[in-house]
C-alpha cells in the first residue's frame, strides 16, 4: 500500500522496511489532507503510523499561497489593507488596524484618543470572534456540535456591528491612515451594547458545556503539551504560548493604540496542552469584553474619528466634488504624489494567534519596497509534527484545531 503513496527512496519507506525486517511489525502510512474535512484549512501531513499511534509526520504547506508580499510591492499603501484582511480572515480588523498603525508609525501620524479607543473596541471584537471560532470548532472536533451552533449566532451579531462600521462582514477593509473612514453610527453603538449584554450569558453557558465536561477533559488534558522553552524556541506567541505559562503579550509589552489605558489581565496556562489553550482563549474572551466596556466608559466626548492629516487621509467625497483643495488632495493621494519617508519599520500587534508583525521597507515611492508579514501561524505551525509525535490520530486533529492554524495566514 505504502508504495502507492510514496516513492521507494522516501525515508518513511526505508523505516517501514527496516521495521518489517526487524520484528515483522508493519507500519503504515496515512495521508492526512490537504482536503481532509477535519483539518479546517488545507495542509497536508504524511503520517507514519504504528496502529493508531503517530510515529512521525511530514507537513506540506503552500496550498493556498497567494503571494501577498509580491502583490504588496505592486500596490499603493492604501490598497494593501484588502490583502491584510485575507491573511487571518477570522480576525481581519486586527490585521487592518495593524497595517494602518505601521503606516502611522512610518508617517509620524498622531491618532486622536477617541479613534484609538474605537480601534481598541473593534480589535477586541475581532479577538472575540477569532477565539470563538477556534474554541467552538475544537468542540466540534471532540464531538460537541452544540457549542458551535450556539455561539456562532453571536459571530453573526459581531458581523452586524462590523457592517454598521464599514459595510462588510468578513473581509472588512476597515479604517484609514489616522483613524476611520467614517464615524461609527449610533446604531453600531446600540448593537454593541446589545452584544455586550447578551454574549456573556451565552459564553458562560458555552464554558459550562465544556470546562467540566468529562469527555472533553479526557480528550484534551495532556494532549499535545509543549514546554515553555520548546514553545519559545519554535517562536510561539499569542494564546498558544501563554498556555505554556509565559505571559508575553504585545498589548502589554509594547502597548499600541492606547492599550496602556486599560486594565486587563494576561491569562496564562500551566502545561501548554490542548485544554490549557482552550482555557486561555476562553479567559481572553472575558478580558476582551472587559476592555471593550472600559473603552466605552472612557470614550472621550465629541465625534473625532480621524487625525487631521490631509496629506494622507482621503477627503470626503462631497468635498472632492465641490472643493478645490479637497480635489487636489484626493488627486495627490490617489496618484501617489504625497511624500513618503525612506525608512524601515517593524510594527507588531497582538493578533488572534500571536505577534503579527509588519516589516516595511520604503524607498520613497507610492508602493512599499518590501513588505514582510510576520505571520504567527506560519512560525508556530512548524512545531506541529513534534507535538503530534506519539499521539493518537484522533488527538492530532484536536491539537491542530486548538493551535488555530489559519491557512490564509500560514501560506500568505
Amino acid at each position, binding site marked *: 500500500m505504502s508504495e502507492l503513496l510514496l516513492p521507494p527512496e522516501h525515508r518513511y519507506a526505508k523505516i517501514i522496511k527496516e521495521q518489517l525486517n526487524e520484528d515483522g511489525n508493519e507500519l503504515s502510512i496515512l495521508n492526512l489532507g490537504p482536503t481532509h474535512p477535519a483539518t479546517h484549512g488545507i495542509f497536508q501531513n504524511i503520517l507514519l503510523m504504528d496502529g493508531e499511534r503517530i510515529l512521525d509526520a511530514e507537513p506540506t504547506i*503552500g496550498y493556498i499561497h497567494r503571494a501577498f508580499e509580491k502583490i504588496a510591492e505592486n500596490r499603493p499603501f492604501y490598497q494593501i489593507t484588502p490583502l491584510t484582511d485575507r491573511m487571518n480572515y477570522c480576525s481581519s480588523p486586527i490585521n487592518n488596524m495593524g497595517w494602518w498603525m505601521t503606516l502611522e508609525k512610518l508617517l509620524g501620524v498622531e491618532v486622536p484618543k477617541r479613534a484609538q479607543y474605537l480601534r481598541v473596541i473593534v480589535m477586541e471584537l475581532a479577538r472575540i470572534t477569532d477565539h470563538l471560532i477556534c474554541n467552538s470548532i475544537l468542540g466540534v472536533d471532540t464531538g460537541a456540535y452544540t457549542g458551535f451552533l450556539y455561539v456562532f449566532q453571536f459571530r453573526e451579531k459581531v458581523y452586524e456591528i462590523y457592517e454598521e462600521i464599514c459595510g462588510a462582514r468578513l473581509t472588512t477593509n476597515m479604517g484609514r491612515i489616522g483613524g476611520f473612514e467614517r464615524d461609527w453610527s449610533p446604531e453600531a453603538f446600540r448593537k454593541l451594547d446589545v452584544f455586550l449584554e447578551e454574549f456573556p450569558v451565552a459564553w458562560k453557558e458555552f464554558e459550562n458545556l465544556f470546562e467540566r465536561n468529562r469527555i472533553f477533559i479526557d480528550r484534551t488534558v495532556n494532549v499535545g503539551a509543549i514546554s515553555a522553552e520548546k514553545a519559545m524556541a519554535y*517562536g510561539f506567541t499569542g494564546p498558544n504560548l501563554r498556555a505554556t505559562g509565559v505571559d508575553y503579550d504585545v498589548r502589554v509589552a509594547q502597548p499600541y493604540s492606547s492599550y496602556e489605558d486599560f486594565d486587563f489581565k494576561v491569562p496564562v496556562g500551566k502545561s501548554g496542552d490542548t485544554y490549557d489553550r482552550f482555557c486561555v482563549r476562553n479567559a481572553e474572551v472575558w478580558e476582551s469584553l472587559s476592555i471593550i466596556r472600559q473603552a466605552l466608559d472612557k470614550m472621550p466626548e465629541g465625534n473625532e474619528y480621524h487625525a487631521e492629516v490631509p496629506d494622507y487621509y482621503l477627503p470626503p467625497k462631497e468635498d472632492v466634488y465641490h472643493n478645490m483643495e479637497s480635489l487636489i488632495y484626493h488627486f495627490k493621494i490617489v496618484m501617489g504624489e504625497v511624500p513618503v519617508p525612506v*525608512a524601515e519599520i517593524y510594527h507588531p500587534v497582538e493578533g488572534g494567534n500571536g505577534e503579527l508583525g509588519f516589516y516595511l521597507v520604503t524607498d520613497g515611492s507610492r508602493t512599499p519596497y518590501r513588505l514582510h508579514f*510576520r505571520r504567527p501561524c506560519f512560525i508556530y505551525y*512548524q512545531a506541529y509534527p513534534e507535538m503530534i509525535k506519539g499521539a493518537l490520530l484522533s488527538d492530532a486533529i484536536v491539537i491542530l484545531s486548538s493551535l488555530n492554524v489559519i491557512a490564509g495566514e500560514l501560506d500568505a
Partner: protein
Amino acid sequence: MALENTAIQEKLAATFGEDVFNFQEERDIFSFEINADKNTAIILFLKNDPDLRFHFLTDLCGVHYPDNPVEKQFAIVYHMHNWYENKRIRIKAFINGENPEIKTISNVFLSSNWMERETYDFFGVNFVGHPQLKRILNMDEMISFPMRKEFPMEDGGRTDKDDRFFGRTVDNC
C-alpha cells in the same frame, strides 16, 4: 535598568570588532549590519550572553536590492527580541547577488527553519547547513524565485487580459 543601545554596541564591538558595524537607531528599533560570514556566531552570542539575552527570534526575511553592487544585492534581516528587558534589535547581513549564500541559524533557533525555507523559496538564498532546504510555499517544479525584483507578479497564463494594458512581459513559471 533597561538595556541601552550603547551597551549592546560596546559588547558586540568588543567581541566581534569590525564584523559588526553601521549601528543606528532606526525609528524605534536599534539596528546594525553584520558581516554575513559571522552571522551564526553573532546571533548565538546575542542569544546566550547573560547581559544581552536576545532569546527570541521574531522574524527572518530577505530583501532584494538589484541596484546595489553585486556583493550587496541581497539582505537577510533578522529581528530579535529580549523579553526580559523588552528590547528589540534588527540585524542586517548583506550577501552576494550572483551566488547568494549564508550560514543557517536553524541550529540556534528552531523557529528559523521554515523562515529560511521561505526565504530560499522567495529569493533563492542558499542557507548552508540547513537540514531540509527546499521550497515550502511554491511548487517544487517552479524554477523562478518570485520575490526577486526581476520576476513579474502576474501569472503568464491568463488569456482574458490584454498584455499591452497590464505591462506583462514574460511568462513566470
